[in-house]
């Protein structure tokens, strides 16, 4: 498989500049908040936006090079770009949409994406999931060297999304071209991609496998983006290189990481245990507070207890006999309490190395 390489690509945006180096082999998800410049990256790769400088190449083919002035038009780049709203041609049928990418190829792709029965339909009559399949079929009918997906799941309702996510995962895994996808949802990114790259304000924050991002978030933004609870407090150094941190509400918790001064701690909801009575194990961090909210997620529930959110099974919630408003103890280990850099203040805060 060829590798798509973005080398110091710089695109000026309204309030900041997008500046990115990235190598894409396999499936890479670019995640970040709205307005971080994610879509601009796809547009630059596709040739719809001209970077100020940098280079974009795939294998030994150069698509853009600010220095030598190479700038291939989109039609000469062999990209398959699936737009966020799919951008299907409304005046053409499903079949004509696919044939627009490549003549005489419709049969194969109608078949492969299970949309043969829709071939005569107009895009306006399709459901979100169907539109996405047509858009994917059309993009791949182009026989692209790289597939670009812009927020592939955001236009779908929650019910459709779960199924489509699985289908999309299988499809991407079977492709032998690099895939670069953009999403604002870490869970979607983790489900679809081998590598997740977090960009904020046009800059790359961290790149890694989804589990690397969760276990070693580079800063508090990445931590909260991957779903962690963030606790702000002031650290007092303790023995063994670990630290005790006094939180804003006065609770004192331990962390296995070294820390000093004002710090941010990250604790994942699934690392938190909930109890109805004070647990005996004094080594555990304990937060005692009433349950502020209960949100069901399939067979799991998320409980907001004081400053943290805990995720436990529906079964254990029933066993504990707890409900909205009842006093609960949220407990978590010092080893599951990580010190992370504040993302607005990356340099001054020390980060634990594993």
């Amino acid at each position: 498989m060829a590798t798509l390489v973005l080398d110091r690509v710089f695109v000026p945006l309204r309030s900041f500049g997008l500046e990115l180096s990235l190598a894409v082999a396999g499936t890479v998800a670019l995640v970040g908040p709205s307005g971080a410049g994610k879509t601009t990256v796809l547009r630059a790769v596709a040739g719809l936006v001209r970077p100020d400088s940098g280079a974009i190449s795939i294998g030994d083919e150069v698509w853009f090079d600010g220095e030598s002035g190479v700038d291939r038009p989109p039609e000469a780049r062999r990209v398959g770009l699936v737009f966020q709203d799919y951008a299907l041609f409304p005046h053409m049928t499903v079949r004509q949409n696919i044939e627009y990418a490549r003549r005489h190829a419709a049969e194969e792709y109608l078949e492969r994406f299970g949309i043969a029965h829709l071939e005569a339909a107009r895009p306006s009559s399709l459901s979100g999931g169907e539109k996405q399949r047509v858009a994917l079929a059309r993009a791949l009918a182009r026989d692209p060297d790289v597939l670009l997906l812009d927020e592939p799941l955001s236009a779908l309702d929650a019910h459709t999304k779960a199924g489509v996510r699985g289908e999309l995962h299988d499809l991407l895994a079977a492709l032998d071209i690099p895939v670069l996808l953009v999403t604002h949802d870490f869970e979607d990114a983790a489900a679809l991609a081998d590598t997740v790259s977090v960009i904020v304000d046009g800059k790359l924050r961290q790149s890694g496998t989804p589990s690397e991002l969760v276990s070693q978030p580079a800063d508090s933004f990445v931590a909260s983006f991957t779903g962690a609870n963030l606790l702000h407090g002031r650290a007092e150094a303790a023995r063994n290189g670990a630290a005790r941190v006094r939180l804003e509400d006065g609770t004192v918790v331990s962390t296995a990481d070294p820390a000093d001064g004002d710090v941010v701690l990250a604790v994942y909801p699934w690392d938190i245990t909930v109890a109805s009575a004070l647990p005996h194990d004094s080594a555990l961090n304990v937060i005692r507070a009433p349950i502020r909210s209960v949100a069901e997620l399939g067979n799991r529930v998320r409980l907001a207890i004081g400053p943290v959110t805990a995720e436990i099974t529906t079964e254990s919630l029933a066993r504990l006999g707890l409900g909205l408003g009842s006093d609960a103890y949220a407990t978590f280990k010092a080893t599951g309490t990580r010190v992370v850099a504040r993302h607005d203040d990356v340099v001054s805060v020390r980060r634990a190395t594993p």
Partner: protein
Amino acid sequence: MRRAALAVTYVTAVAVALGFLLLPIVAIFTHTSPGKLLEQLSNPVVVDALVVTLKTSVIAQLLIVALGTPTAYLLASRRFPGHAFAVTLVELPLVLPPAVAGIGLLAAFGRLGLLGSSLEALGITLPFTQAAVIVAVAYVASPLYIRQAIAAFEATDPSLAAASRTLGAGPARTFFRVVLPLARGGLIAGLALSFARGIGEFGATIMFAGSLQAVTQTFSLAIYAEFDRNFDATLAMSGLLVLISIVLLAALRIGLTWQRSSSTASSSLFGLSGSS
């Protein structure tokens, strides 16, 4: 009580407005009979006017579409220094009184005009020729097409053109296969408006092209010329013009309905694309 008064006000206003708009057209047809109208079709003045009007209109509209479409597309899809000025310039003839437009055309292309001597050197004399009618009609009617075309192009989703490019189509193929079909409804509407305006052109034409039978005398000019000589001919020509306008409006409606059923592209057109 109040609501009833309001309803009466509405109904009265609508009745008066519609009656006012319809009455002159009804009057033209009640003043003449279909027999007399057909009779006038053998009157050489009427026949000449019909030929001159159709010929000059068709050529003028072809020119407007050929030059106006790319102009409108450029103004709709690109932003450049002087863009707002260019758009204003395109609309200028709309607000110019037709007689002033005629004088302006004479001052520009007349024998003593700005370009007159250069045109003469090329052996071209424009004023008081059939070509002058075409120029006058194109000058006065083109803004109606170009304005509508700009709106139609601006209404097409730019991501569709972008999608076309990433699917391997160059700018030309993208324009003809994606942008043009989606903007078609708006372009047809603009053309119909421009055509209607061109057929009714009077002021600029009489100033710049004169009113010579079989050469520059269009329907509108002939109606004026025959007014105190042959009122029947005047009425017949007016009736014919009304018929042409109705056919044009009907064709436009049918064209748009067909367009809507074959695509989801929205085209907002001076109220014609309502909820029919």
